[in-house]
C-alpha cells in the first residue's frame, strides 16, 4: 500500500492512451499522474510556476519596449566584444548559449547513467554540468561588470530607453540566480551519487526520504528548465 502512494512506476495493468487516457487518469479518484512519482510531479509543478514568473518578466519587458517613445538600444552593438581587432556582435552571449546547451547535454547523459547505476560516470557528468554552469555565471558577472562600467543602470544608460537597464538586470539577474542555485544542488546531488547514497538508501537532506536515482532525473528537470528559460531570453532580449 505504501508502495502505491510513495513509489513510482509499479503499474502493470495497461492504461488507456490519448485523450481517453487523460480523462481516465484525472477521473480515477486516486492520483492523476500514474507513472510519475510525487517528487517528479512536484518538480514539474514548480517549473510550471517558474514558467509564469519568467513569462511575466519577459512580458513586462515587451510592454516597456513597445510603449517607449525613445529608441531601444541595439543589443547587437551593446553586447558586442572587441576581439582580434574587430567588433563581433553578441559573441559573449553566443558562447554562454553554447555552454548552457552543453551543460544540458551532459546533464541528460548523467540522468541516463544514473538509471544504469553507473555511479562514476553519473557523478563526473554532473560535476562537468556544474562546472559549465559556474562558468556561465562567471561570464554573466563579466558581462554585468562591462555594462556597469559603461554606465548602464536600472534607471539610465548611454544609448536610449531607460527601461533597457532595468529589464536587463531583472531578467538576467533572476536567470543567473537560478543557475547558481542549480550549481549548488548539482554539487550536493553529485556528492550523494559519488558516495552511493542512492544504492544504500541513506535518508536524504531535504525530505529525509530514501533517495533513488530518480533524484538525478528531478535535478536534471530543473537544470534543463534553466537552459530552456535561456532559450527564450536569448531570443527575446538579445536577438529581437
Amino acid at each position, binding site marked *: 500500500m505504501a508502495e502505491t502512494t510513495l513509489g*513510482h*512506476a509499479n503499474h502493470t495493468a495497461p*492504461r488507456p492512451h*490519448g*485523450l481517453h*487516457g*487523460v480523462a481516465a*487518469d484525472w477521473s480515477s479518484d486516486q492520483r*492523476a*499522474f*500514474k*507513472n*510519475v512519482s510525487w517528487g517528479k*510531479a512536484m518538480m*514539474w509543478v514548480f517549473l*510550471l510556476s517558474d*514558467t*509564469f514568473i519568467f*513569462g*511575466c518578466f519577459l*512580458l513586462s519587458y*515587451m*510592454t516597456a519596449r*513597445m*510603449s*517607449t*517613445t525613445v529608441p531601444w538600444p541595439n543589443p*547587437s552593438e551593446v553586447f558586442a566584444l572587441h576581439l582580434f581587432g574587430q567588433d563581433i*556582435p*553578441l559573441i559573449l552571449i*553566443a558562447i554562454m*548559449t*553554447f555552454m548552457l*546547451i*552543453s551543460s*544540458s*547535454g551532459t*546533464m*541528460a*547523459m548523467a*540522468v*541516463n547513467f544514473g*538509471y*544504469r*547505476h553507473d555511479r562514476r560516470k553519473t557523478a563526473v557528468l554532473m560535476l562537468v554540468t556544474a562546472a559549465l554552469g559556474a562558468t556561465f555565471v562567471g561570464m554573466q558577472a563579466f558581462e554585468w561588470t562591462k555594462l556597469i562600467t559603461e554606465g548602464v543602470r536600472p534607471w539610465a544608460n548611454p544609448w536610449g530607453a531607460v527601461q533597457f537597464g532595468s529589464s536587463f538586470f531583472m531578467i538576467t539577474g533572476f536567470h543567473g540566480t537560478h543557475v547558481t542555485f542549480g550549481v549548488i544542488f548539482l554539487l550536493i546531488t553529485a556528492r550523494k551519487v559519488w558516495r552511493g547514497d542512492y544504492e544504500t538508501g541513506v535518508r536524504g537532506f531535504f525530505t529525509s526520504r530514501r533517495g533513488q*536515482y*530518480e533524484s538525478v*532525473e528531478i535535478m*536534471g528537470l530543473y537544470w*534543463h*528548465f534553466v*537552459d*530552456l528559460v535561456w*532559450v*527564450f531570453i*536569448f*531570443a527575446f532580449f*538579445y*536577438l*529581437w
Partner: protein
Amino acid sequence: MAQAEAQLHGDDAPASKVGHAEGQQHPIRLYLVVWGWLFVLSAGSYSIDYFGLQGHLRWGLILTFMMLKAGLIVAVFMHMAWERLALAYAILVPPLLILVFVAIMVLESDYTELTRVLSFSGS
C-alpha cells in the same frame, strides 16, 4: 544488480523502447543527436544577428529556432515525449495562457505609446 548489468549493454537498444521498469531508459546516442541539433539551431539563431537580417524574416527565424530548441529540450531532455498525456497536458497547456496576456499587453502598450506621443511629445 542484474538489471544494472543488463542496462550497461543497453546502448544499442531501440529508441522506441520505453523502460518504466526503472525510470527513463534511452540510448545515449539519442541525447548526443539532440545535443548536436541544439548546437546547429543555436548557431542558426546567432547567425541571424551576425548577418544582420531584419524585419519579418528576422522575427520569424528567431521564433522558429526558439520553438524548435524549446521543443527538443522539453520533449527529449526532460522526457516529456515519454510521459503520459495527463502530465504533459497539465504542464504544457497552462503556459499558453501567457499568450492571452501577451495579446492584452500588446494592445495596452500600443495605447500607452499613443498617449505618450499625443500628450508628451509637444514640449
